[in-house]
Every structure is written in C-alpha cells, then in structure tokens.
C-alpha cells in the first residue's frame, strides 16, 4: 500500500505559496499583510490531506488560491501544479467542476432559484448525464425526487449532501472541502466524512480544510498544521496517536489540549497572521523557545522522522 502510493504522481503540488492582502491603513497609505507564508504541500490520488488551523489563520484562502477565486485585494506568489502542470487562473476555471471540485462551507452556495437536478447536471440534458445524476443522488441517500426540489425545500443535512453530490458529479480528480461540517453534530459530521473517505478510495485526491483536528484525524492520511499563516508541521495521521511522535512543540500542545488527552492549555495566543515580522511566530508561546527563535530571519522546514517540521529545535522522539 505504502509503496503503491509512492509510485503515484501527485495530483496537486503547492510549492512555496504565499498569499498577501493589500489594504489601506489610514488615508492613502497602503500596506501588504502576508496571510499565508511559504506554504508547500502535495496531494496524491487516493489520499486525504487535512489542513488544520484556527479560524482566521488563513486556511480558507488556500482553497480560494488553488481555485483562482481570491478576493480582489490579494495576490499570490509561488507555484501550484495540477497533474504536474502549472495551475493558472484560466486553467483552474476550465477544470472547475470536472477535475477540480470545491465542497464549500455553507449551503448558501446553492443557487436558490434552480432545482437541485439542474444544478447537478449543469444544464446538460442527455440521458447519460441524467442517469449519472440519479446515481450520485442515490449514493448519498437522496431519492430521485430530490432532483425536483428547490434548495429551500432541503433540510440542512440534505443540502450538504447535495453539495457533495454536485462536487463529485463529474468524477473530479481533486476535491477541496472547505470546512464542510460546521455546526453539525458528531453523527452527521461522521456520516459526511465517511463519504469523503469513500471518494478517496475511488482514487480522487482530497484536500480537507478544517479547524477541527479531532475530526480531521478520523479520515485523513496526512495532516498539515497551520499556525498564524505558516505550516508548522506535516505529519501522518498515525503520528497523532502518540505525543512522542509529533515534531513541533505546537502540535504537541494541540495533542495535550484535546479534551480526551488532558485538556491542558499553554500560555499566550496565536498571533494574527502577518503581525509577526521575523522569527518563529510560535516563539511567544513556545516553552522550549530560545533566543534564536525570535531573531532568526526565516525558520526553514526540516524533514524529521518522515514528516516535515518548521522549527529550529524540533522535539525529540520519546516513548510515552
């Protein structure tokens, strides 16, 4: 299994991407705020990669950056490859729907004036598409009569399933899910995540963006941890079974803060992305922090025990 995965070419490669916001402070002075800094990740076929970060840490912008729908006052640097080729804004537009699909946060992304069926088929009326539409609906436990409903007639859970159905309609190779389960109770969220896992089993790559580490761990193969706009660790989901296998002090703090693992907080708070200009953004909260951490110009990413970590002094392995 592990070997097979290594042979596959990644569908999505993100290399050193930074996203900046431009805004006016006072009067006509304009400044740029880096919301995402130096982000790299890859998604392979059949793999679920979770990006976990607190709200406001810039992770939704990542999805928007990949799809080429960033807000007007932002710009992106770095490289995004889809299937080995650069993903430009035009290419993303062409791929959207077939090849590249987004499962958005809210049910407001459905067109309120269009029946579900029409939204799924996107206007195509041939028999094949209709048949596929029925199949997809059925797969998510929605009867064929759902196609004739308007979005306001759907319950919250149904609407979310329609969003998923709409995303997988054309069998995309890459699915980006941006906080697909907020406000859902554990059972409903679990069902939706089960669908995601199934999608990955059929060979699609999945980028799962969420703030909920515990939820992400239930389906992800790899987890990328965000802190103040930077990726600080990329670890396999198994690494989270044991604190000793984690590499970054913040990831360990996350582990200890889980209600089931001691519920222990650490001091301080995650800064707003871009407000820390030099050194490690975590330096203010880090217990193992040294003088260099705050002074270093750039903290490089190192490979440690098969994962990636952005720390000058990554945690040693220990058996707990």
């Amino acid at each position, binding site marked *: 299994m592990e070997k097979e995965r290594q042979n596959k070419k990644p569908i999505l490669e993100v290399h050193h991407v930074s996203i900046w916001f431009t*805004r006016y402070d006072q009067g006509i002075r304009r400044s740029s*705020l880096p919301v995402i800094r130096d982000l790299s990740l890859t998604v392979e076929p059949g793999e679920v990669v979770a990006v976990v970060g607190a709200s406001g840490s810039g992770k939704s912008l990542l999805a928007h950056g990949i799809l080429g729908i960033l807000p007007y006052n932002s710009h992106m640097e770095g490289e995004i490859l889809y299937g080995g080729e650069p993903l430009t804004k035009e290419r993303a537009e062409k791929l959207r729907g077939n090849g590249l699909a987004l499962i958005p946060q809210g049910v407001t992304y459905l067109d309120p004036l269009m029946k579900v069926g029409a939204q799924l088929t996107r206007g195509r009326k041939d028999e094949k598409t209709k048949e596929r539409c029925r199949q997809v609906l059925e797969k998510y436990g929605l009867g064929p009569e759902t196609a004739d409903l308007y979005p306001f007639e759907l319950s919250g859970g149904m609407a979310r399933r329609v969003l998923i159905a709409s995303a997988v309609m054309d069998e995309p190779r890459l699915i980006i899910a941006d906080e697909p389960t907020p406000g859902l109770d554990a059972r409903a969220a679990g069902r939706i995540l089960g669908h995601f896992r199934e999608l990955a089993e059929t060979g699609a790559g999945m980028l799962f963006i969420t703030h909920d580490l515990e939820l992400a761990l239930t389906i992800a193969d790899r987890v990328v941890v965000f802190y103040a706009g930077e990726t600080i660790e990329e670890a396999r989901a198994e690494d989270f079974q044991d604190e000793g296998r984690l590499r970054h002090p913040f990831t360990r703090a996350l582990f200890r803060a889980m209600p089931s693992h001691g519920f222990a907080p650490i001091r301080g708070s995650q800064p707003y992305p871009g407000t820390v200009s030099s050194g490690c953004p975590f330096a203010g909260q880090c217990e193992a922090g040294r003088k260099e951490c705050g002074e270093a110009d750039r903290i490089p990413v190192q490979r440690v025990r098969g994962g990636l970590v952005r720390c000058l002094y990554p945690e040693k392995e220990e058996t707990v």
Partner: protein
Amino acid sequence: MTERHWNRRAGTLLFLVLAILVLAGITAAGIFLEEEAAVTDFSRTNLAPGAEFWFGTDWMGRDMFARTIAGLSLSIRIGLLTAAVSAAAALVLGTMAATLGRRADSAISWCIDLVMGIPHILLVMLISIACGRGFAGVVAGVSLSHWPSLARVIRGEVLQLKNAPYILVEEKLGVSKLQVACRHMLPHLFPQFLTGLILLFPHAILHEASVTFLGFGLSSEQPAIGVILSESMQYLTTGRWWLALFPGLSLVLVVVLFALLGERARYLLDPASAHE
C-alpha cells in the same frame, strides 16, 4: 510593508477634491456674474461664439457665458438645498420606519411606495404649482419628491443594524440607547447616507431644470438653465445654435460631475472595493 507610491485611493481622492473645487468655483462665480448676466446691450446682439464672448450673445445682447454660469450656480444651489432637505427627510422617516414598530413602518412604507409610484416630473410639477411656482415652488417640489429611495435604503440599513449581534450585545451590557445610536449606528449609516445624498444632486438639478423648462418652475427673469433653454428653443430654427448648445452641454457636464462624485465616494466607502 508600507508603500507610499501613487495608488488608486490617492487618485480617487484627487478626483474628488478637483470635482468639488470645480463645482464650488462655478457656484461662486455664478453669484458674482449674476448682475453681468442681466446686462443687455443692443449693440452686440446675436453674436456667434468667439474670443470676446465664449458662448456668444443672445437677441438682447446678453453674454451667454455669464448667463450659463449664473444659471448653473443657481441650479447647484437649488440642488444642494433640495438634496439636503430630501436627505434629512429620508433619514428621519427611514429611521422612524425601522424603529417605531410595525404600524409606523407600514404607514411610512406606504408613503414611500405612493411617492415612488407617481412619475417624478409630474409630482414636481404638481407640488410646484400648488406652492405658487417660483423658487419656493421648485424647492418644495423637488425636495418632496426625492426622499423615498434614500429613505428605503436607510430603513433597510437601520433594520439590519438593529439586529446586528454587536448592537444587541452592547444593549445587553447596559450601554444606553443614545450611546448605541450615536456610537454604533450612525457611523455605519454614514457612508450609505453620504453616497445617497451626493447621488441625489444630479436628479434634483435635472428635475429643477426640466420643470423650469416646461414653465412650471422658476420665473423667467431668473437666470436659470431651464429658462435659458426654453427661451432659446424659438431661436434654434434661425441658426443660433449656440443659445441652447452651450448651456445644455454645461448642465449635462455638471450633472455628470456630480454623478461621478457620488460614484467615486461610494467606491471609497464600500468595503467591497475600498482596498483596491
């Protein structure tokens, strides 16, 4: 990272300042030129536009340039007055509709629909005639017919603000109603109100001119653009094209300038474009 280079906001601000200077200049110049605009001199009647009289002269030898500027100035002043009255009415009525309960809301909303349902020009004419035409008639007519659209906007805005979580929380924390209104509601209302107010000017000016042109507005001894245009109509066929062309054109320019002003102000104040 801060840049101090030329950017879009600086450009927009420069445009706003220039536009306001031009409009203020016209208004001031018009007041000084009012006497000159009334001077008749039968030795220079019907001159085509030239170096001495840029806009030519009319059948009584009046300098058309002076008349045009004086007319524009009067239009702008009437526009300012009526737009201010309209906007004030809109603010009061819109806020009342949103805060005084369902009955007041339906009463005021009914009035809004009623006024909006009647064609503006007709309403302006009727009110103007009822008020005895002239300056008072025009001001009453224009200001009583232009408030509904802005009132509706303000009503919606206040309704939304009233239920905004941060307003609810402030009230729950014991902050007085007055303080909530002044500190939290007005600043949010202001951008909408300001752009609405500026965009009222072009409407007000055009309606004043049309009503005057039709003979239901300002009296003919006043140097209004509407008066100039309607008088010039009878000379158009005799080849004196300048009598109507320049005053008409400058009226259009002033209106466009006001519209652009509102457009740009909105561009600066609207968060969806403020940081471009």
